[in-house]
C-alpha cells in the first residue's frame, strides 16, 4: 500500500508533464504547418467574401449563441473573430 500511495502522485505528475509536452509539440507543429501554407494576396478574392469570414455574423451571431447557451448544458468554442484571409 505504501509503495502504491507514493507512486500515484508521481504518475499523476508525469501524466501532467506528458500532457504539456504533447500540447507544446502540437503548438509547434501547428505553427510550422501554418508557415508552410502560402495563399498569395491576389488569390484571396473568395476568402474576403463575408460568407467565408469567421465571426462575420456580428450581433446576430452573438444573440444566437446567447439563446443556445441558455437552452443547452454546454458552453464555449463557438468561434472567434475572423481573419487569416488578409482582408480585415
Amino acid at each position, binding site marked *: 500500500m505504501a509503495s502504491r500511495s507514493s507512486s500515484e502522485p508521481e504518475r499523476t505528475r508525469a501524466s501532467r508533464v506528458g500532457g504539456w509536452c504533447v500540447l507544446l509539440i502540437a503548438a509547434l507543429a501547428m505553427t510550422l504547418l501554418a508557415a508552410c501554407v502560402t495563399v498569395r494576396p491576389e488569390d484571396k478574392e473568395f476568402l474576403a467574401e463575408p460568407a467565408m469570414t469567421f465571426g462575420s455574423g456580428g450581433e446576430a451571431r452573438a444573440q444566437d449563441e446567447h439563446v443556445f447557451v441558455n437552452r*443547452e448544458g454546454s458552453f464555449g468554442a463557438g468561434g472567434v473573430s475572423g481573419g487569416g484571409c488578409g482582408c480585415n
Partner: protein
Amino acid sequence: MQLRLPRPAAAAATAILLLGAGVARAESGIGTTTTFFHESGGALDMTVLTPSAHATVDMGEAATVSARWEADVVSGASVAVVDAPGGTVDAITSATTLSDVRHVFGGSLTFNDDNTSLTGTYDYGFEEDYRSHGMSISARAEMFERNTAFEVSYARGWDRVCTLLQPRAQEAVDRSRLPNADGCFQAEMERDTVDVSLQTFQGGWTQAWTPVLTTQLTLTAQILNGFQGNPYRAVWLGRTAAQEHHPENRARYAAGLGVRFWVKPLRGAAQLFGRLYRDSWGVESFTGEIAYDQAILAGLRLKARGRYYTQIGASFYSDDYQRFPQGQYFTGDRELSPMSSVTVGGQLTWDVPGNEEGDVLGFLGGLEIVGKADLIFHDFSEFHYGRAEVPTDTALMATFGIEAIF
C-alpha cells in the same frame, strides 16, 4: 418574477462574444439587433425579447472604442417545484408566472497595429435578482502573409445572486426556494446574496489553406465557483421539496472546428462546424452544424442552416429523486438532463450597394440589414414534470438587425 436562465454561463458568453465583436470592427458605426424567442405548450410558455445597440468609434489607425447595451425582457410561466405531486395529472398545473428585465451595459477599447490588436472589455449586468461584473482581455496576431491568425483571451466575471436567507450550515435538503425577487439587493431581512466567480480562457487559430478553403479551431476552458442553481426552483425529494442543489465548482472544456469552402460555380460558401464539450459535472455534448450561404443578387445573400445538438446529462441528474437519488446533489434543470435538439432556419443579409463613390444613402460608408429565423425542436427524453413530458419542446427564434458604417 422567476427567471430561469443559467446566468453565469450567459454572462461569460457575453464577455467572450464582446471580445470577438470588438476585435472584428475597426470602423466607426452604429448598429441595433433584436432577437425574439418564444416557446409554449400546455400551461408553460417562455418569451424572451433581446434588443441590443452598439456604437463604435475609430480613433485614428491605432485605437477603437465601442459601447454596447443589451437587454433581456423575459415573461412566461414555469414550474417552480419540479416533480411535486400535483393531483391527478402532473406538476405542470402548478406553473407560476414570471417576468424580469436584465440590462447589460458594456464598453471596449482596442489598440490596433498592422498585424496585431489588443482588446479590453468591461460589462455590467443587473436585474431584480442578479448583478454581474465582467472584464476580459484578448490579444490577436496575424502572420505568414495574413494567412494565419492566432487569438487568445481571458475573461473574468464576478456575479451575485439573490436567494432566501437561510442558515449557511443548513442541510441542502432542508433549504427552501426563493418565492419571489421582492427585497433582493435592498437589505431585506429575508433575502441573502451568494457569489459566483467565472474565469474563461479561449484560444483560436484561423487558417487560410487555399484560395477557397479556410478553417478555424477554437478551444475554451471555463471555471465556475459558487452558487450555480436556480434559487426559485425546488425539487421534490419524497417527503418534501428543497431548493435545487448543484456542486459549487464546475470546470468546462470545449473544442470547436469550423470549415468554410467556397463553391466557385455557384458563388456560394459551404460552412461546416463541429464542437465537442465535456465538464466536471459529467455533461458531454456534440454539436454539428451545416450551412450554405449563397449570393443571389448584388449585395443580397441567402443562408440556410441545420444544427444538431446532443448531450449526456450531469452525473447527479435524476428524473425522479424520490425513487432514484443520485448522491448529495439534485436538480430540476432540464438542461442538465440527457437531451438533444435540431435547429433549422434561414437568414437573409442585404449589404446595401453604394453609389459610384461607394456611399450608401449619400452619407454612409456601408449599410447592412439582417433578418433570420430558426425553429428549434427539443427532445427531453429523460426529463418529466411528474409523469408529464416537457410540453415546450418547440421554439421559434427570430432576429432582425441593422448595421451602419460611417
